[in-house]
């Protein structure tokens, strides 16, 4: 078998080593595509064109397929997120308990829609389909920490602490 030459990382950034490690662990198989994209997103925060091209050539996968996968799954982001993220859960239990009001309030106060980032790059607003904390609905995730039993006012108040830093 001819050993394929490995594509060089797009830059000297040491973080590419994490991406390399994931691909190596999976033997550079095409099936490692989703795992690799997860690692890229974990290390760099989002998937840019450069990284998609690099992953495509490393895994010997058509770029169209890499792009297809990264746009098919909701978790993959092709745009950089703001400094802080707020993920409002819109699962059924949260919906019944008024998560739409909560979302509306945040949208209104910060003038952003889900998937968008404030102009000062501080806060990204996202939505999720159920984070599995239905017992304390409605919930939102602030920078990875789940906050339960929210009200519209409380949700906005929790965002305000991100304003100044």
């Amino acid at each position, binding site marked *: 078998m001819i050993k394929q030459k490995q594509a060089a990382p797009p830059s000297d950034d040491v973080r590419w080593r994490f991406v390399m490690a994931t691909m190596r662990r999976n033997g550079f198989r095409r099936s490692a595509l*989703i795992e690799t994209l997860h690692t890229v997103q974990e290390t760099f925060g989002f998937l840019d064109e450069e990284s998609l091209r690099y992953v495509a050539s490393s895994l010997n996968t058509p770029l169209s*397929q890499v792009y297809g996968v990264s746009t098919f799954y*909701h978790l993959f982001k092709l745009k950089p997120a703001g400094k802080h993220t707020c993920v409002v859960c*819109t699962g059924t239990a949260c*919906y019944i308990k008024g998560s739409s009001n909560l979302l509306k309030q945040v949208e209104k106060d910060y003038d952003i829609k889900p998937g968008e980032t404030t102009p000062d790059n501080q806060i990204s607003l996202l939505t999720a*389909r159920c984070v599995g904390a*239905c017992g304390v609905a409605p919930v939102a995730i602030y920078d990875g920490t789940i906050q339960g039993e929210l009200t519209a006012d409380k949700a906005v108040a929790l965002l305000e602490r991100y304003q100044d830093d």
Partner: protein
Amino acid sequence: MIDRFEKIKRKEREAAAGVDYTIGVCVAASCLSLQGDKVLDAFQEGIEGPKEEGSPPSRCRAKGVGCLGLCSRGPLVSVTKQQDQPADDQSRVLYQDVTVDDAPRILEAHEADKTVPDILCPTDTPFFERQIKIVLENSGKIDPTRIEEYIAADGYHALLEAVTEMTPNQVIDEIVRSGLRGRGGGGYPTGLKWTTVAKAQEEKVKYVICNADEGDPGAFMDRSVLESDPHRIIEGMTIAGYAVGASRGYIYVRGEYPLAIGRLKKAINQARRQNVLGNGICGTTFNFQIEIRLGAGAFVCGEETALIASIEGKRGQPRPRPPYPAELGLWHEPTLINNVETFANIAPIIRNGGDWFASYGTATSNGTKVFALAGSVAKNGLIEVPMGITLHEIVEELGGGTANGHQIKAVQTGGPSGGCIPASYFETPVDYESLKKLGSIMGSGGLITMDETSNMVDVARYFMEFCMAESCGKCVPCRVGTVHLHNLLDKIYNGKATHKDLALLERLCSFVSETSLCGLGQAAPNPIRSTLRFFREEYLDLLVDEPVHAISEEVAA
């Protein structure tokens, strides 16, 4: 091997015997969101922290445990007295809404053999007493991050018995006898599925997949099991691997469950070290490896063929069945796919026998079912009840009715693929067939209660919006149909639709369900159909009369 298990058991018993009280703080996602981890730290600090000179050593120890069930009153803390071991639910004290400041009070009270009455959670209520725990037997009792505690609770004993004393066929026979049916919602007999995979050609490579892509909004049973008792899934999968002749397994977990993923990874490493996973399991020639694959937020990946595509690194799009994955699955090899809860039932069945399992439940639906009770009921949380219990018992007795004094109007089961069951049908027993007759499904176990304040058209629209966004786009009826269904519902809800629109909605419902490729599209109209069936007047109330010229045109024609 059994000696090693006994040694671990003895060590665990000795550790527990050194103190009088074991304090268990819930460290599952729901309680963590209410600062459960800080409460645990506070307890540990209170026990190990600096003490006054001459004070006796603490009589308590604190540890993190899995889900204690009553998620809406978290963080929950259980205190078990040593001589009560093995503790059942009635013999332990439970505290609710515990804050960091409560920790010293609880410690102080129990050092003096007292309790703290104001935050006591009554456990003599139906919510606790009516439950029968098979899947959740260890939840809230053992520390999910330590394999030793799982082994001490008779964990991995079923695996040892299976691989050393039983043939693969005997294992399958036991599962067949138990009458276990797929807990992911479909209700396909698990034993039959295992038999099919086992019968596939011997020289073939086979795979076992655990479907932990819990996509239904409002369902969190799988998350809880994975976070509270991850070894149970590993044991169930390994037994399945032995029974069907597979040597490789995959757990496909939702990317949205970082805590569950972390605990699973840890559990897999521990299991390898204890030789209950990997090569030469329990000293036999049986090898089984488990890998974790992360989902990336696509609801359709809960469908088995889409899930397989996703593990292969492709877009999660389903393909027509047959051939079923049991014949042609992952990398075109025979593949066994079961849900988390199905695998969670395997070890107890092997340990206690299929007949024992079959003694629970109804004639056609055996065993228990875990439900995630959420919505308007007073007590939100995780419950495990025998099949055949009525909805009334679940909602009014276990759930304690509504929290706000409103009447419960309906329960929604099965997520976006299920339906709404009105209060007038609450005497229906919960089993696969009865729910199907009402136009709903068992589903994976999300049970959302709605009171009078919920408008059913809005609820149907909510679910249709979900299906519309989650349609993978492969087949036209689902991709286009769900959009039109959503638009029609939106029109009705905003008071702009006529009777004609309603007729179109009904026609489109049957069209989409009959012609879609996979379960997502086929079941997408279920919420509309069931709400139309039971709450038609809510739709009719929102309709407007046809414009005058339209009527005259019809008369003329």
